[in-house]
């Protein structure tokens, strides 16, 4: 016993603290989060911005900076969790930053209380940040400037509204935002290639089903269902001119064939493995054809031409595209679901899939290395990234990021490429597009109204009790004008009666936004902060599929909707 190694250490405190989230986005996601520096440009009541940050500080985002020139007032204390009585009159940026930092000592927090106009005027003001969150209201000119930075520096930009019972956010992502680890739901990831088996898999099935008819009961009840299905596919092909089952009718007939082969003279009156085979028929007997989304990725210009500065995603996608062109299928992912089988047979089956997956990976990897040399690539691509890509190849996703609408202070808003789809969605009750229009109108009002004495500070509609009625009139007429111009720009014809309903809805929403007086309701801000931070995490970790590109929330009906603007 004397020469044993000394007592071993447990996981670090940090790993323990983050244990519950590492199980979602893993160590690579966590590293990405820790390397981020998030900028929050906060304004208005400022609750939604801070609730968003809170949910990013807790899981350990590396750095955050709050820009906010407001001073803490009494109303802040009622809705803002990160402010206390003693902070009244102080800089909101400073106090909220300090209280947020207390939530997680691993996170570095900074604040800027200089007014946003002068601060943004400095060159390189935005340089340190990897992601920017802006809360409304903000002057359109400044938002345009931020959008230009997002375009040029490929930094994701989030823009949020939270007013009364309603909220909205839009995301401006880089023009090509690819995701390998989309975390598809487990039901969709099984890929057994039963319709395109390779020789080793066929040999396995043949071996396990040899002498099927005369097999002892216990052996028969333990044939892995993969082997059962492959065996009967061969039987089916003999009777059907070498064709596998083509359509639903064929598949149900095939299912009956397998069902009929189940032995019923067992103590249970059936066989579990055959039951598994029968229930797997409809979902497993599909040609292993990649989805159109994946095929489009292979065809996109970034994938077709690999240059020395091509990001690894495109290099690997190109290599897998070559694999697909050659074989008509994607690399085998290699996982085998649990099934009734003897452990030795099951392990053998796992090995058949694993060795095929390794072989496919080797081929893709070879192409990647060839591309690296050929294009004189500046970065070396790691094998584990190629492996992860091969495993997820059927589920990769490309989001084409683009700017969201910024309502100009002067002149009209152009709705652009998505005008038509937005106009169409106006009448879908579930799409909640009217809320988006109402928020655009709210922005337009704010951009064109200033508080009397301080000409620079913008005024939110309904912020003074005396103006509620006149503001309601103004915001409503802006909103109705906006929806008219949307319908016109889209050249969309809409049933008159239906359109009246839409206009009535928009007027009602405008009224509600004004009535809130630019105020936030804490739980709506918290909910929206939860949604936005979740999307921020997706964007930073490059895992899961983020909102593309706008989400609105209706707190009256507890509904949300995602659409493209």
């Amino acid at each position, binding site marked *: 016993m004397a020469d044993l190694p000394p007592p071993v250490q447990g996981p670090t405190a940090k790993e323990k603290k983050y244990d519950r989230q*590492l199980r979602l986005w893993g160590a690579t996601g966590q590293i990405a989060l820790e390397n981020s520096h998030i900028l929050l440009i906060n304004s208005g009541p400022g609750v939604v911005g801070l609730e968003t940050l809170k949910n990013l500080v807790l*899981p350990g985002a590396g750095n955050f900076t709050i820009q906010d020139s407001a001073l803490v007032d009494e109303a802040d204390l009622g809705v803002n969790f990160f402010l206390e009585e003693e902070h009244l009159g102080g800089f909101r940026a400073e106090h909220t930053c300090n209280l947020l930092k207390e939530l997680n000592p691993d996170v570095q927090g900074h604040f800027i209380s200089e007014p946003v106009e002068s601060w943004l005027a400095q060159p390189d003001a935005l340089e340190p940040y990897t992601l920017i969150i802006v809360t409304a209201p903000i002057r359109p000119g400044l938002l345009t400037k931020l959008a230009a930075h997002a375009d040029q520096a490929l930094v994701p930009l989030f823009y949020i509204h939270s007013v009364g019972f309603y909220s909205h956010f839009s995301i401006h992502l880089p023009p090509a935002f690819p995701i390998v680890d989309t975390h598809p739901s487990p039901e969709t990831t099984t890929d057994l290639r039963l319709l395109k088996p390779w020789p080793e898999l066929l040999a396995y099935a043949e071996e396990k089903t040899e002498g099927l008819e005369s097999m002892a009961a216990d052996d028969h009840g333990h044939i892995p269902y993969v082997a059962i299905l492959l065996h009967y596919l061969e039987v089916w092909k003999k009777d059907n001119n070498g064709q596998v089952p083509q359509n639903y009718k064929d598949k149900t007939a095939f299912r009956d064939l397998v069902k009929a082969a189940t032995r019923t003279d067992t103590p249970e009156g059936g066989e579990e493995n055959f039951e598994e085979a029968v229930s797997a028929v409809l979902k497993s007997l599909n040609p292993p054809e990649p989805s159109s989304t994946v095929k489009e990725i292979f065809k996109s210009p970034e994938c077709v031409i690999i240059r020395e500065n091509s990001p690894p995603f495109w290099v690997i996608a190109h290599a897998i595209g070559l694999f697909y062109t050659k074989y008509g299928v994607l690399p085998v992912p290699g996982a085998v679901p649990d099934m009734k089988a003897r452990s030795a047979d099951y392990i053998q089956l796992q090995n058949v899939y694993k060795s095929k997956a390794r072989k496919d990976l080797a081929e893709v990897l070879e192409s990647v290395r060839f591309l690296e040399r050929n294009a004189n690539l500046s970065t070396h691509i790691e094998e584990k990234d190629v492996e992860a890509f091969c495993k997820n190849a059927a589920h990769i996703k490309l989001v084409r990021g683009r700017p969201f609408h910024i309502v100009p202070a002067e002149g009209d808003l152009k709705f652009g490429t998505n005008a038509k789809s937005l106009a169409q969605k106006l009448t*879908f009750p579930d799409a909640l597009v009217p809320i988006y229009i109402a928020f655009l109108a709210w922005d337009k009002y704010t951009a064109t109204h200033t508080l009397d004495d301080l000409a620079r500070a913008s005024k939110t509609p309904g912020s003074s009790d005396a103006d509620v009625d006149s503001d309601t009139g103004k915001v409503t007429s802006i909103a109705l004008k906006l929806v008219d111009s949307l319908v016109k720009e889209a050249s969309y014809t809409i049933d008159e009666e239906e359109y009246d309903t839409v206009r009535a809805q928009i007027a009602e929403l405008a009224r509600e936004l004004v009535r809130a007086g630019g105020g936030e*309701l*804490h739980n709506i801000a918290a909910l929206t902060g939860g949604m936005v931070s979740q999307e921020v995490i997706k964007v930073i970790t490059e895992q899961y599929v983020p909102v593309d590109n706008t989400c609105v*929330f209706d707190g009256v009906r*507890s509904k949300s909707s995602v659409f493209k603007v």
Partner: protein
Amino acid sequence: MATGRDKHASRSLGSTLHARIKRARVLMVGAGGIGCELLKNLVLTGFGEIHIVDLDTIDLSNLNRQFLFRKEHIKKSKALVAKESAGKFNPNVKIEAYHDNIKDPSFNVAWFSKFDIVFNALDNLEARRHVNKMCLAADVPLIESGTTGFNGQVQVIQKGKTQCYDCTPKDAPKSFPVCTIRSTPSQPIHCIVWAKSYLFTEIFGTSEDDAPELDHSEDSENRKEIENLRNESQALKRIRESMGSEEFPKLVFDKVFKEDIERLRSMEDMWRTRKAPNALHYEDLLKEVTGVEKNIAQKDQAAWTVTENFAVFLHSLRRLSNRMEETKANADTGNSSPILTFDKDDVDTLDFVAASANLRSIIFGIEGRSKFDIKQMAGNIIPAIATTNAMTASICVLQSFKVMRAVMAKDELGAKLKDESSEKSSKAEVKEEQIEAKTDEAFSQKISKAKMVFLAPNGTERRLTTEGLSPPNPCCPVCSVAQSTIVVDANRATLNDLVEDLLRLQLGYGEEFSVNSEAGLLYDPEEDANLNKTFAELGLNNDASITIIDDADEGARVNLVLHISEQHLGTEAKPIDLTQKPEIPLKPKAAPTETNGDSRPIVTNGLTNGVTNGATNGLKRTAKEAGLKDELVRKRGKVVAESDDDDFVIVDDANDGVICIDDD
């Protein structure tokens, strides 16, 4: 007009609702991930009085989301620290905290009925079911919530109006046949369960017989093997006695990784169709162990080799034995020896289980697992993050507004009708029932605005899916029962008084029924031994409940649950009596077990199963379908109607008239 602090909330909620919320008294069960968020939301939306119950203490792994807690709070009571942290942010709110189990008898029906709303922010099925039952008994609205990773859900439960928590069946935790675990494992999970529920418990805990993961049911096939396994456990228990000695690790190792394996291997029948296991040898492994990296146990994502597992096994075993010895030395000289329980966050116990499980996997030719994975599988870990909790808790509060509006509508109408009836006071007692029916209807109408909400983390068209609340399942064993409270003088009242006087005479039960307590059957036509015993003798004390099951062939009524309120009644009074005569409806005839067979995702925090992707739950609506709905909307009227109330409520009511897809 509210100013300052309340400005925002008052504007958005409307002054009447805001004022009612300020007077509300709510209960929050659980101060964990959802609980912290919920408490913050309740405080900042203006709820006046909040009670928090939680038995748990704070752990390091909570800090990534439970933001009311800091490092210095570790091991302290969640309820108490939450109260302290949240109270700072709104001195006007009254917060009461209880570091206690919600199942404690002091939290009785009367106590629950003091609240306007109860929020469940729990992480386990058992406590959820308990609170569900209590809220049904106390007739208090319950807002139930849960999260798993990115998924979350919120459900509003109101006795008699909506489904209760148990109206849809919930999956029970998985268990494995004992022979699979002990003799014929074929998957990594079998070896993990073996290490945790058998080996660890037999050496450091009480006994594997109590492990819920093991199914000990015997049949003719496995009887002999189960007998063998019992002997094996006995032998291991004897080895336990030599804990602390130099040869203890070798004794344990040789027993479970060599001798038991050799015994199994000798049973040739068992391996005719399986791959036979291969025993491991202590001496061989000991020779190689010096080559093992010192920090191997920290590499929790890697698959360890046999020698690495061996090293971790020896070390964790030694650490655990030392702890047992220390506890023994420090404990009073009592008879009971100390025990350890497996805790996924206790590194020593986790190392031991991980290494033992992997050694067993090697023996049976099963793939090993990393410590990280074993932690999740052995600890039933549910991934949990701040973002999901934030959304879920906010939705709870949103639904609570709708519940509060229903409460308000009921109270207002009740007050109005009472005023009217007292003006024409002559037939007041007749009116009482009518008033109740009318206020109840007003309540039902408002509460039907509440929704069941699911997070849809990957939805391409939405981030939430919303459903109307379903009516109670008429066959639900929990909510489709009649309830009543009985006063009992426990020293005088006998079971016979209950059966003959109360049930047969007063409530009209026939011959065929049974009386059951939580412990089991008390009375049925074949079981009359208890009839002369008093309630005190039967252990039926204050706040216990008994269930009457009607077994009549014709016209059987639903189960009746009687809650006991113990009182000393004068000798002239009946020793047992009803406080109110319950209405006991007939059992529905062969009703379906589920009211709707849809595949709605059930996110059950505390269980790893039943989680589905929000986007795949069949609620997706194509543009065409949505268009059809629009047709309907148009036909029903297009104008957003004005209502007589200038509160925020209008939008809600008006929209329900225009957009009626919520309730499909």
